[in-house]
């Protein structure tokens, strides 16, 4: 019951947040000089003045700002995200086509980063000054400080150019014929490099945090008691200490969700991954306001849902956390 109440309160906040996101971004887009007519001219290699005017009139860009904003918000409230100026397709269609690719990338990267990050954190916490621990720290800091597009290109040069192990770009090889199984394997084959690239940033965060909380847990009384009772080391570490060390890691993972999505924009651009990131990138360059706002709307939605899931996950690992959030 408390949970339902939380959900309701959260939904109201979410709705207010979403409208704020739209109004704010619409205004900011409007403040910038130039508009989509210029980028359409650019895509055409030039356009005559009358054509530019016709485009502006068609999209209502010649109307006063408040009229444009009012029209847009009105449409959104009716569940209509509008038409892309640039692609002339419904924004919802454009986004829905791209969402699966981004979710696949973001979730797989997040899961990989969590599993490996936590594992490395646990390993290095057991001998904090050992060689393994230093090695883990090095790898983690390297992944964290290198820009993702650079890591991406580096992996491409290594594993696509030198070894031919992985494809360079895209999400599937359309020349491959075969059933669902073969096609899924093909997608997995394409997924690995972008996933590792995106995970490399967050892996560092998770392994560092796990290491710190694990060190803390391993010094607590209940761990000493467990050892005194004769519980084997492995069991103490993975069943007792880790369970308590995980809670802050999960909080962080939830908070990082928006960062993972924005990281995906760059990773998608490097690997031509056909997700929301590449769409966001091209739409921003094209000044395609309805598409950009649509993407922001969906991203905000994903972050809100992500945070909600984090709360749920926390309750699972730590029952002491209450219902109010």
């Amino acid at each position, binding site marked *: 019951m408390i949970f339902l109440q939380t959900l309701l309160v959260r939904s109201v906040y979410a709705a207010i947040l979403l409208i704020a996101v739209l109004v704010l971004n619409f205004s900011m887009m409007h403040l910038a000089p130039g508009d989509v007519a210029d*980028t359409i001219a650019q895509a*055409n290699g030039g356009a005559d003045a*009358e054509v530019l005017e016709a485009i502006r009139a068609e999209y209502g860009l010649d109307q006063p700002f408040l009229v444009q904003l009012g029209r847009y918000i009105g449409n959104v409230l009716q569940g209509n995200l509008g038409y892309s100026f640039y692609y*002339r397709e419904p924004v919802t269609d454009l986004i829905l086509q791209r969402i699966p690719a981004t979710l696949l990338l973001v979730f797989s990267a997040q899961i990989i980063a969590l599993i490996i990050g936590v594992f490395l954190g646990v390993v290095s916490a057991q001998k904090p000054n050992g060689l393994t621990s230093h090695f883990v720290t090095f790898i983690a800091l390297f992944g964290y400080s290198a820009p993702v597009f650079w890591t991406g290109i580096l992996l*491409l040069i290594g594993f696509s150019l030198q070894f031919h192990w992985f494809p360079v770009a895209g999400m599937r090889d359309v020349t491959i014929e075969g059933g669902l199984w073969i096609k899924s394997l093909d997608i997995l084959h394409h997924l690995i490099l972008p996933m590792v690239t995106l995970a490399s940033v967050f892996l560092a965060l998770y392994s560092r945090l796990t290491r710190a909380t694990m060190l803390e847990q391993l010094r607590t009384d209940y761990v000493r008691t467990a050892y005194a009772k004769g519980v084997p080391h492995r069991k103490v570490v993975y069943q007792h200490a880790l369970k308590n060390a995980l809670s802050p890691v999960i909080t962080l993972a939830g908070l990082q969700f928006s960062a993972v999505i924005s990281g995906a924009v760059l990773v998608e651009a490097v690997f031509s991954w056909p997700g929301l990131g590449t769409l966001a990138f091209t739409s921003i360059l094209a000044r395609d306001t309805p598409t950009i706002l649509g993407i922001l709307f969906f991203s905000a939605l994903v972050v809100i849902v992500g945070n909600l899931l984090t709360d749920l996950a926390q309750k699972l690992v730590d029952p002491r956390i209450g219902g109010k959030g």
Partner: protein
Amino acid sequence: MRHIFKGLMTATALASMMATSAHADEPKKGGTLVTVLGSNVRNLNSAVQSGIVTGFPGAQLFASPLRYDENWEPQPYLAKTWEVSEDGLTVTLNLVDNAKFHDGTPLTSADVAFSVEVIKANHPFKSMFAPVESVETPDAHTAVLKLSKPHPALMLAMSGQLMSIIPKHIYGDGAITDVKAHARNNKDVVGSGPFKLVEFKNGEHVILERFDDFFIEGRPYLDKIVMRIITDPAARAIAYENGELHMGAFESLPRIINRLKKVESLTVTSDGYGAIGPTDWLAMNTTKGPLSNVKVRKAIAYAVDKNFIHKALMQGTAGDSTSGIHPDSPFYAAQDGYDLDLEKSAALLDEAGFPVKDGSRMTLTIDFGWPGVKPQVEYVKAALKKVDITVEVRSSADFPTWAKKMGTGDFDMSWDTVFNWGDPVIGVHRTYDSTNIHKGVWSNTQGYSNARVDELMALAAVENDLEKRKALYAEFQAIIADELPVYHTNTVPYHTVYNTDKVGNPPIGIWGSSTPIDMTYLK
């Protein structure tokens, strides 16, 4: 000396032998060509959308009346023959009688008339068909274009991606101006070109497949074309190198071009960009401040070392450009450059009334519209410092921000790239026409106005005699190079990259990849 000469002889003999053996290759049928588009496609219907990204798939899906050989001579395509009347006011196209659209419907003169109407109403280049008043259709395979004045530019405008014939029975179901938003511009596209659309996934790929009823017997050679959309130039370079891509066009980063040239399996060529005609220049706003004085503009040209731009910035990948018309065009008349001469530059600035005061003669701004040309802009700043001109570099957040400044004349200098688009009437006049001042990006943004230049362009636009037309454009180019509304520095180093052992007959004619690749094959 003799040794070198002998060595050269052998090399040439060897090269010509290799050339003959390459010609001896019989085109093979079948196979899937994997190629690439460098940015997302907005619209596949090239009757309503221009631009190089639409040009490649557009020219495969839709056929045009003419095509051109590498010597800029028109060749039959949908039109098997054509005549221009004595007075130049009537152009008759005799269409092939076996052309069909991808849905099986025969292509007729009514489709040609319809397409002209659609292009006139929707295409961004109004000058292409502005003089075409009507298209008469005396029979199903004859289309007669009636012109209000002679219009030699029509010939190039009827080729490449510029005059795509689209089916009236598909695209004619609404108002003419609605065709630009037609639902079948990106889905279930129907044309009469050598390939038909299988699938277009925005941001991912365009897949085309051989059209078995194509009107040229035995063509196309390829079974399938996969055009992948890869926007990152570094990723594309790796994909050429490891063989994932057989071919690609419009690669323009000097560093990447030079790297790919060293890869043994690849051929990297700058052929195929004459008609698109991309040139780089330093734009100078002639409407305000010191730059309204032609002596100041000349002083700047003398102070900017083109040699440095070619060698250091373009790393030897770009050609020279001196006159606003692309050097590959038959209308190009090379002009004497402004070789680096700092003394002359300083003298001109003194003459113009800009002596050095407190270490500087004047302060000018310079803009750029995309990050790729920032080195050029920084170089201009450094070069002009030597003649005591202070330059402030103004960055623009993105293309529209810059386009707005240019389109409204809110700049002193800017780096710019503009395409010729075939005939000078289409892509060159717009920059110098005094009736086209400050009408958006790539109009006459420099505010240049010269009555004789206007007159020459007007005369050249209606001159059907090629030699007389060339003479008019030669005079035009001489004035432009002398008055310098823009200082022409180089051609854009676009290159086509293909796998030498795999791709036969790549599209490197005057229109490059904006032509049907019905003759391209996989070895």
